[in-house]
């Protein structure tokens, strides 16, 4: 356990390292600002602390130090390679950081405004005002296909399951492996 003296300075260092990571995950491009420009590293850091306490911050600082963040003096390819190393060597930590960064980015009011301004209706807190949607129009939107059937209680009949062989023919490949 680090004592408070040893942890002096970890905040600014971690913040800088995290900002560098965030900018690799969410680089600026065109209208889209980079993650660090928006300060995405700050809510990410706060959520790490909320999730795992100070120990999690220490672990993160160590993990980022291992990949050389904040990447000072490194070219783009080297920075990307460093982040890929984190992704490969610590996949769970990387997933958590990536998801936290993405969430913080897209809840930022500047990004919400940008998305909405590009023509995709989007609100910071949609529940407050909702979205304008035209009411259901019975005249034009009621299905007319006439398809569908159901079986009345009195008409339920026994089906022949003898060919199913549920006990003997076992499906081993199922789901996405099917």
């Amino acid at each position, binding site marked *: 356990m680090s004592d408070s003296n040893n942890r002096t300075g970890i905040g600014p260092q971690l913040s800088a390292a995290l900002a560098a990571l965030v900018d690799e995950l969410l680089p600026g491009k065109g209208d889209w600002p980079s993650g660090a420009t928006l300060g995405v590293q700050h809510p990410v850091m706060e959520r790490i602390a909320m999730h795992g306490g100070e120990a999690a911050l220490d672990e993160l600082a160590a993990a980022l130090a291992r990949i050389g963040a904040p990447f000072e003096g490194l070219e783009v390819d080297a920075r990307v390679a460093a982040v890929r190393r984190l992704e490969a060597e610590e996949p769970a930590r990387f997933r958590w950081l990536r998801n936290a960064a993405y969430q913080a980015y897209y809840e930022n009011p500047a990004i919400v405004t940008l998305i909405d301004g590009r023509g995709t209706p989007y609100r910071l807190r949609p*529940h407050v005002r909702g979205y304008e949607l035209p009411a259901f129009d019975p005249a034009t939107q009621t299905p007319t296909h006439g398809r569908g059937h159901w079986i009345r209680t009195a008409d339920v009949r026994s089906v022949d399951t003898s060919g199913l062989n549920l006990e003997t023919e076992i499906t081993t490949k199922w789901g996405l492996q099917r």
Partner: protein
Amino acid sequence: MSANNDIHDVLIIGSGATGSIAALVLAKAGHDVVCLEQGGWIEPGDFAHLHNDWAWRRATSWNPDVNMRSHPDDYPVDSDSSQVLMWNGVGGSTNVYGAIWPRYRPSDFRKGDEHGLQPNWPITYEDIAPHYDRVDLLLGTSGLAGDPAQPPRAPCPTGPLPFTAAAGRLAGAFDALGWHWWPVEAGVVSEAYDGRPGCNGCGMCNGCPRGSMTLNSRSIWPKALAAGARLQTHARVLRIETGADGRATGAIWKNRITGMEERTRARIVIVAANGVGTPRLLLASGNLANSSGMVGRNLLHHTLVAAQIWVDEPVNGQMGYVASLISREFAETDVSRGFVNGFNFNCLTSTPSAGEMTTGWMSGTTAPWGAGHHEWFEKHFGHSIGLFAIGDDLPNPDNRVFLDESRTDEDGVPVIRMHYEPGENDRRMMNYMLDRLEDVGRAAGAFEIALQDYRDANGVYRTPAWHMIGTCRMGADPETSVVNGWHQSWDVPNMFIMDGSVLATGGVVNPTPTISALALRASEHIRDNFADLSGTTRTLAA
């Protein structure tokens, strides 16, 4: 121990979808009703919806999975498979559900006749059909009558929700395939109804603090309280007590504010604690009501797989109610498919959150990081549609909830454990469902289709289990069921179970409408026969 000697007419354990309805019916009839709820009231500000970081909260503090949040109202549920989705508090899981509101079909009650791999219910569709309609009036269900794939029904009290662009795209796909589709029924008012505002299309449909979605703490409890029902919050029931005659006398509960144990006595006890909480309580009460050995067994979740598709034209699925259409094309058994039972497509819109879209909503497909991120986002956000395929799983007594006697929670109650594994018929059905989901995606002209089988890296099926049903099933035979057709315990004649645990089969639909209709029916039965039922020492076949 704190106790008073009052003997109430009715004690209800659990204040969710069913406990609230029972409280309303019985209090309106003039009965002295007390409801014990282990959680508290959920205030609008407690919901994720009103905060800028609502999407983050949906994944953390507002996560419907009890094991993904840390909330003092919860009790531990140790599952080796399913995600355990529920909410403990006034209104129960209606605080976090999506309120898709379809009904069972007549054949769902007759699977014993159809193939014998499931039991018949002791009641029929016709027995609860009027209660479906009356629950809809109570709650303001929205939808469109006239679906040729369902028995006739009364008009929905509020009309269908807006027909979104996602709905239009999928309707075109189903038409191209020649398959059934219909606008989905929802436990959401599409216009002002009973003091509740109509849906504003925000898309954040996991609970609804404005109350457009049926939230039983808003739609039912105020009426029940006005009728005289008493609701004791922060009251965690530890065990149900019985007398020498085997009848329930009441319950011992922990007051979570004072820390004291208290006793409440009643002539009739209604257990409404959901498909996990109810068997947990019965098992922790000395294996109560379990002469059949069926308490906790035959856990059903439905077979569930999903797809996320992306289409070229914007469909803006971030807007509008979470569900759009339902397709009942495959709802009935056709053994030529290689399995019994059927399934529906519950067609969604999409996630309301840009962040969720990038972090793997529905299918687990995540946005790439780095140089390609923004291009991916522009191509995918506003272009996504989600689809569930939800089918009728076969009961298996080894799929169950049970007590871990080696561990207790903070109140000294053994920890409940859960195990669920799909069987052969279920696996075949899910393979078929995934193929059909691909058919829909292709017919919709999707440029990308991502399937979801809910299996983890080790192959364990970890379904998001909103539907925890079957664990105290209803039947005609005390040897193989826990309650009769009126929800009355075979073993404890003045105790009734009113929640999803009594469902003998799961149907191919979200169960809350059926659970609610059954609760209304059973509550009215108790109301109309209170004198007999509160004194009876024998449970008769319904």
